[in-house]
């Protein structure tokens, strides 16, 4: 079953919220971090999970390393959809990185969760990714 689940790429800074989300999700995933020079290259179509770092005006929402990753056309080509992370306490900019990436890359914003996610978020994302693996075309709906 898990063979049909799309690959995952995620960004997590040293505060590690998104990393903990991925650990609990229990699916293989490639990590982007601010410290790395060499970016990973996904071998198959993937879903990107990205936290938000926006200031009060929404600037700087998408981490630089994610921009670098997506600015490479070959890496960008494989993106199926994006899952945004953030904190509702940031008001209107909550999960903004997910919305920006969805617009820029012309892919659906699949889900948004806060910090390291709740158990409900984990269950929904896992079920959603399995569904996406079975019906990849449904994202065009």
């Amino acid at each position: 079953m898990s063979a049909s689940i799309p690959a995952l790429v995620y960004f997590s800074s040293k505060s590690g919220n998104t990393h903990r989300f991925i650990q609990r999700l229990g699916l293989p995933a490639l990590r982007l971090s601010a410290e790395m020079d060499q970016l990973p290259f996904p071998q198959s179509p993937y879903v990107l999970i990205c936290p938000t770092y926006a200031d009060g005006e929404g600037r700087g929402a998408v981490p630089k390393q994610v921009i670098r990753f997506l600015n490479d056309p070959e890496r960008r080509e494989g993106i199926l959809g994006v899952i945004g992370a953030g904190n509702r306490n940031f008001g209107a900019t909550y999960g903004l990185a997910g919305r920006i990436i969805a617009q820029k890359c012309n892919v659906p914003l699949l889900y948004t969760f806060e910090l390291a996610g709740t158990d409900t978020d984990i269950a929904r994302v896992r079920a959603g990714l399995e569904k996406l693996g079975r019906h990849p075309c449904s994202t065009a709906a």
Partner: protein
Amino acid sequence: MKDMTETKIPRAINWNRLDDEKDLEVWNRLTVNFWLPEKVPLSNDIPSWATLTDHEKQLTIRVFTGLTLLDTIQNAVGAPSLMPDAITPHEEAVLTNIAFMEAVHARSYSSIFSTLCSTKEIDEAFRWSEENPHLQAKAKAILDTYAPGNDPLKRKIASVFLESFLFYSGFYLPMYWSSRAKLTNTADLIRLIIRDEAVHGYYIGYKFQRGYEKLSEAEQQEMKDYAFGLMFELYGIENQYTEELYDELGLTEDVKVFLHYNANKALQNLGFEALFPPEVSEVNPAILAALSPDSENHDFFSGSGSSYVIGKAVATEDEDWDF
């Protein structure tokens, strides 16, 4: 008597040589987000204030004096108590910003009061805050942890719980009014405070994690037990505080769910797992919408939530992403 100890002169801070990139990231975020209460047109709330009952007005003022006390503690004691524990000079500088913004927050409540309330009402509420046993108990629990000589990591735990948990029994009310289209300018100001507290909780929690990962397994267990123990103690106080404030409006259960949700987020800031299960932490959607207006929760997977918007072009330049 002459002080025989040698005066320790700090090294001049060099922001071009960072030990921890997070310090600069958070400094930039905090300074860009700087604001003052004068920015918010609070007087537009005067007609709305007049629609509240006397009890609702009293509750609102009391809740805000409670928040003022927490901000005062964090400004005068909390953030300064973290400074001697700072690992980098940049961390110390960030903490001075945090301390100052807490003073701005405390000052903001007085701006709300002077715009909306009479001197008599204000004085009565401040007297209430000095006498309310639950409010005093939570202040004492935090201050005991901040005391000199206490463990630096335990101080950070208390600080994160104040920033990310204890404020929320109070923040609930302006979000509730806002969800009913009342005191919406006041809610705008409170959202600025909430935004700042989120960065503070995140940063202090991050620094806690850096210290925690250096502990032995046994020490980590002891520290985690301490954190959950303190959370239980504060949660008990918050429950009573919430009942006393919100029973009359019938909002207590709704507020308690909000407490669970925020307790879980406070623990996540420390790198720990959630304490309260999802079924008691699903916050009233109207309150969530008041917290983060214009940012609906997307769940494309289950078919709920709004449909996504597709852009026209694909950007390839870094600056294009900065919007």
